[in-house]
């Protein structure tokens, strides 16, 4: 039996048969016949329409277009405008694209340092005349990155984060519809940082979420991304690509372009749990700031309070948020809350814990005065912190 040796897996030689099936066989039963010349990849030529708006696509490793590696069977990301337009031809009807390959990382390996590079790259593109930015991003930490860019850039144009929950190598992937909707949003009247992803399991429309109010709420579903604390800021219908923005959504041109790319990396997000030892908090000594994801209205156990007092005494900013995700922190209702406030912990309003962490990095990176920094943490900067809790959310 003849086949093509693909790779080694768990001590077996993986061989592709003529039928296309792979099988694993012991290496000792294989005999080398010949090494075929690698198949030439056909160059693709795609025409772009220069009369359409200019969009820049910044890639961080989330694959908008990808191709199977013939030998390993793994997915390799393809990143130039032609590859993307070959994979998703509808995009060519929406805009004229420039592509910036910034990073090729899995999104769990994202760092504040890369957020800074990303912010600078986006800033350059907008300065260069881009009418909108699309950031392709892995979904795991997309909400953190969207929040980070929200704080780091004052933008006159849409900055749209997009990804896919089903890999681009499958015919059912959500990548194409998400990308088309993202491009539609990026050419729309939107004027803020947003995440555009499937609204439901149907391929019928995408939701536009505010970058500071979005969270991945499901491990695998297409509609994993949800706006928390506010309604979505818009939607894009598919395949019509009609964009509808909510009344409060920031419109294109509202803000002047500005980059504030400093971040304080010595910040942490700590989830409280019953029985948590103060030793865990002790590990954060020397940190500039800690966001606590507390229980209910914003609590930790009373046994943690002395250690928290010790931290705030050493100028660590401690902000309380809630693991409930929905609703507002209030540390004035129960004794424990009042004791936390007395220990120097400040209330994080209705901020999402992750958004509060990223905001803290940005605030402490840009404001050295402790009291001013605390005030900024409680102010609404980029829609992350509402003064009112609306009905029905």
């Amino acid at each position: 039996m003849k086949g093509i040796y693909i790779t080694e897996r768990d001590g077996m030689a993986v061989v592709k048969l003529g039928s296309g099936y792979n099988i694993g066989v012991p290496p000792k039963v294989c005999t080398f016949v010949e090494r075929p010349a690698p198949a030439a990849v056909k160059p693709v030529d795609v025409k772009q329409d220069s009369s359409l708006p200019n969009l820049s696509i910044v890639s961080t490793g989330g694959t908008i277009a990808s191709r199977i590696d013939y030998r390993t069977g793994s997915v390799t990301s393809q990143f130039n405008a032609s590859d993307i337009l070959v994979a998703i031809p509808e995009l060519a009807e929406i805009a004229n694209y420039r592509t910036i390959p910034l990073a090729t990382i899995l999104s769990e390996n994202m760092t504040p340092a890369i957020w800074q590079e990303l912010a600078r790259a986006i800033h350059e593109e907008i300065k260069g005349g881009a009418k909108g930015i699309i950031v392709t991003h892995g979904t795991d930490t997309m909400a953190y990155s969207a929040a980070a860019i929200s704080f780091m850039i004052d933008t006159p144009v849409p900055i749209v984060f997009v990804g896919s929950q089903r890999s681009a190598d499958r015919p059912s992937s959500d990548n194409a519809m998400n990308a088309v909707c993202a491009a539609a949003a990026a050419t729309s009247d939107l004027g803020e940082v947003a995440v555009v992803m499937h609204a439901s399991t149907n391929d019928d429309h995408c939701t536009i979420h505010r970058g500071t109010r979005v969270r991945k709420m499901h491990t695998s579903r297409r509609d994993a991304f949800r706006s928390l604390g506010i309604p979505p800021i818009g939607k894009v219908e598919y395949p019509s690509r009609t964009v509808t923005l909510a009344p409060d959504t920031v419109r294109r041109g509202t803000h002047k372009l500005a980059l504030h790319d400093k971040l304080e990396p010595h910040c942490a997000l700590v989830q409280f749990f019953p029985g948590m030892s103060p030793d865990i908090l002790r590990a954060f000594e020397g940190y500039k700031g800690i966001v606590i994801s507390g229980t209910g209205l914003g609590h930790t156990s009373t046994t943690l309070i002395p250690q928290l007092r010790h931290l705030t005494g050493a100028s660590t900013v401690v902000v309380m948020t809630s693991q409930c995700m929905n609703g507002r922190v209030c540390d004035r209702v129960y004794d424990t809350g009042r004791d936390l406030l007395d220990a120097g912990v400040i209330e994080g309003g209705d901020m999402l814990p992750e958004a509060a962490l990223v905001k803290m990095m940005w605030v402490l990176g840009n404001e050295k005065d402790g009291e001013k920094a605390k005030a900024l943490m409680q102010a609404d900067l980029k829609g992350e912190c509402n003064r009112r809790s609306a009905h029905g959310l």
Partner: protein
Amino acid sequence: MDYKKAGLVAGIEIHQQLDTAEKLFCHCPTALRETAEHAGEFSRFLRATVSEMGEIDRAAKEEMKRDRRFQYYTYDTTCLVEDDEEPPAPMNDEALSVCLTIGKMFSMTPVPQVHTMRKLVIDGSNTSGFQRTALVALNGTLPNGGEIETICLEEEAAQRVKDEVFSLDRLGIPLIEITTSPCMHTPEEVQKMAEYIGMVLRSTGKVKRGIGTIRQDVNISIAQGARVEVKGVQELDLIAEVVRREVQRQQNLLATRDELKGRGASVDTASAQDITTLFKDTKSTVLKKAKKIHAIILKGFAGLVGREIQPERRLGSEMSDYAKKCGVGGIFHTDELPAYGVTAEEVASLKTHMKAGEADCVIIVAGGSEKQAVCAIGQVVTRATIALSDKPVPEETRKMLETGSSAYMRPLPGAARMYPETDVLPVIIDDARWRAVTIPELLTARADRYAKEYQIDLPYAMQLAGSDKLPLFERAIKEGIKPKLAAFTILSTATELRRDGVDVRKISDDAYLATWHAVEKGQTVREAIPELFRSIAAGSTFEESLKNLAPRVSREELEAIVRKILADRSEFVAQKGKAALGPLMGVVMAEVRGSVDGKMVSEVLRTGIDKALEPK
């Protein structure tokens, strides 16, 4: 027909659903549901992905000619895996074991490390756009010298409800695919092979039974022809006919080509044009509805487009199938016109307008848009060009039509459609696992055994071994029911009732067993089974049905009934003597409405007759 001379080469693929507790890549039950029970719906698009060679598979490309929104039904017995909203679970080990058992029955070699692949399918029948499949065993042989090339373990596709609507209950049920080598040369051989493999599969007791649970695809080619796969043959009896008709089709396509060549026929692509205005006052509903009507001349094709190449199939039907891929309803050709509301005057003006001669055939397509009409004409050109070429039989996947003819589905898929399923880990099949696989008794051997052990006639035993109710029979034996009683009920009583219009599917296996136990315990008699079953099939429980049976007749009551009947018919008895027993049995049985055992009736009646015949 001399099939050897025709150069017939055929092979089959058998797809059989496995009766496992859970699906192949999730933990849902393998239960089929009524579509009315669906709990939710969602809709999706699918797009062909570029293969590792940078190409789109030709079969997938064909499906992409239309943007289709697929609708899916979900149930409380399906989950996010069927919705393509969750990565697959590891491969179902029970299903793999069944495949290994079958592999060993065919003396095959197991694959040491089984890799799951994705086979691109974007007709909507798989939510993911691919079917997961794994090669499990290779190189088998059959007692008759036939060869099994491969056994694959696949996931079943979703069931099409109608048009673009699919039901997800069936998606993911484990399916074994058995592929023979192209080792057969007559239609009958193919059918016999399918019968034998089916028998082996059923011998495991782990395959689903009933309509739609087994499907055969037949690969057929003849000398000068091409490999064609006819899919979805559900009835075994049709396999030979499918082969015969495909041979006929290929031979006719070859002959048509020769005739076209002889006539100097050609496809006049320059003649393609928009003729919408020509039909602006037409009475034809199809043409009236069309937004764009296009036409093209096939020079020298007259008469051949409409000539039958297979019962109910013409070259025109082939062109029509190709055109349908663009979303049009089909084509009209002048070989069949005037018809379908198109008048003779319209045909004449069409021919004049197109400048078509006597020997030419004009094809018209009615599209919902310019794009559709252009696409459809392009497809007609493609198919007509093939008909003229050195290879007038295209390699195709076709679907079987009811009578055994077939219609074009898509080109044969290329190798570009298979790529690795990265979400499923490979499974090792080591020597220890392979050695531990035990081979079940073949159904043919089982029938022999039944015949011997239970004194059931061999043809009856064969029927039993092949029956859907075999597991019930085995259960009955285990529970101490007399084999003959169980066999008789399954093979005769139930069949007779079914022919009588009783819906015997409504009688559960438990109801069968309860009935037999009641007979064995003397609570009722064998003769009452039909009446009991009628009542159960009509919706009553077994207990209710038993209670509502004609009241039991005691021996004393029976003797009284017999005495009365004999007295009423004393002349008849005197005349017939002992031979009166037979005719009178029926009379007595009717009187007691089957509520007494026939043996007892015959015994009491015989005693009564003997008594009546005694010299007074």
